[in-house]
């Protein structure tokens, strides 16, 4: 067992873990934060995307120990109390989810996308940037609409 500590959604956490522990296992099994999902075993679906020091990464393809000292944000860290983050609200408004399994990864990917490419996102950019996020339900159309709207709303909220 090896000691690890990091900041998750603003809270300092530390634990003794098996070095094999993936970041997603640390979040779900150690911290019991099950908002981050595991949809595949092959690093391809993006359900597990979280932010590590601001970068969107696949938490199923990251060792928890590599994140020692890092600041991690998960889907649980976006809402302010009962108030949804603008990107979450846009997914609800635009019917951007059906079963919801892919949604945490979609939203974390979308929020980081806005931080890199701004709040005016065209459809082509959104579709390209969703390369690593798979959805089995929606056919993507409403996800793309939700991200465009959520990005705009993030711009308005920041003003």
């Amino acid at each position, binding site marked *: 067992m*090896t000691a690890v500590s990091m900041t998750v959604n603003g809270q300092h956490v530390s634990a003794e873990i*098996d*070095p*094999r522990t*993936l970041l997603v296992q640390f979040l779900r099994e150690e911290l019991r934060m099950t908002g981050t999902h595991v949809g595949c*075993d*092959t*690093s*391809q679906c*993006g359900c597990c*995307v979280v932010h590590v020091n601001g*970068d*969107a*990464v*696949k938490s*199923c*393809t*990251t*060792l928890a*120990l*590599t994140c*020692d000292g890092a600041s991690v944000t998960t889907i649980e860290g976006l809402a302010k109390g009962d108030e949804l983050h603008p990107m979450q609200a846009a997914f609800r408004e635009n019917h951007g989810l059906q079963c919801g399994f892919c949604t945490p990864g979609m939203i974390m*990917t979308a929020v*980081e*996308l806005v931080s890199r490419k701004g709040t005016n996102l065209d459809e082509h950019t959104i579709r390209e*940037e969703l*390369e*690593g*996020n798979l959805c089995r339900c929606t056919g993507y159309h409403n996800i793309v609409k939700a991200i465009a709207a959520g990005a705009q709303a993030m711009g308005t909220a920041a003003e």
Partner: protein
Amino acid sequence: MYEFAYHRPGSVAEAAKLAGDHTDGKLLAGGQTLLPTMKQRLAGPSDIIDLSRLDDLRGISVKDGVVTIKALTRHAAVATSAEVKAAIPALAELAGMIGDPAVRNKGTIGGSVANNDPAADYPSACLALGATITTNKRAIKADDFFQGMFETALEEGEIITSISFPVPEKANYQKFRNPASRYALVGVFVAKTAGHVRVAVTGAGASGVFRVRDFEAALEANFAPAALDGKSVSASGLNSDIHADAEYRAHLITVMAKRAVAAAG
């Protein structure tokens, strides 16, 4: 995943010592290849030597017509680097075509080159641009570095520290993606320097990245897509799988090479 002991060295020298002491261990860079392989139990290293704290192995510089990218520089950093875009735009574009945004936020150039996946993108840039791969021990020319599928000139525990790319007159990379895996089904990198042209193909060769001398000679005589009319690479020695058979890959090589020449201008 099989069990392993975890180390997080603070310097290249310490990492090299750990790698020397644990010959069944593996260096961990971005983990975007190694961790999936370990999860599937296709690899079971006794020790993981996590390079993530070696901050002096990150960064990009351009000097005297050479772009030097340190080994732990992530694909996202190369794709968005103003210096790389100005000096070798094709290299920035290539980095931006790797996998998806989350993979590019973690995966590193050193990891990609060390791994030498036959469908990876960077090996083609190294070979076509005549890059030099520098390790903690020596400098290796790309022509000598890539030695077959997942095979390189690296010795056990040798650590890539940087990769240097001479700035060409013109270059372009064309990738025909496997739509599911996003790796190259066929990728062709064409680079033109004073009097010389190099053409490197990834994704297609059964023993990894390779140069097409016949295309190079034709393009040295006339750097235009038409120079490759009627030219092709033999399908024997190319990969055949459920995604594409060897004949189709051979066809794609000419098509992608012509597109790269056209785009290089």
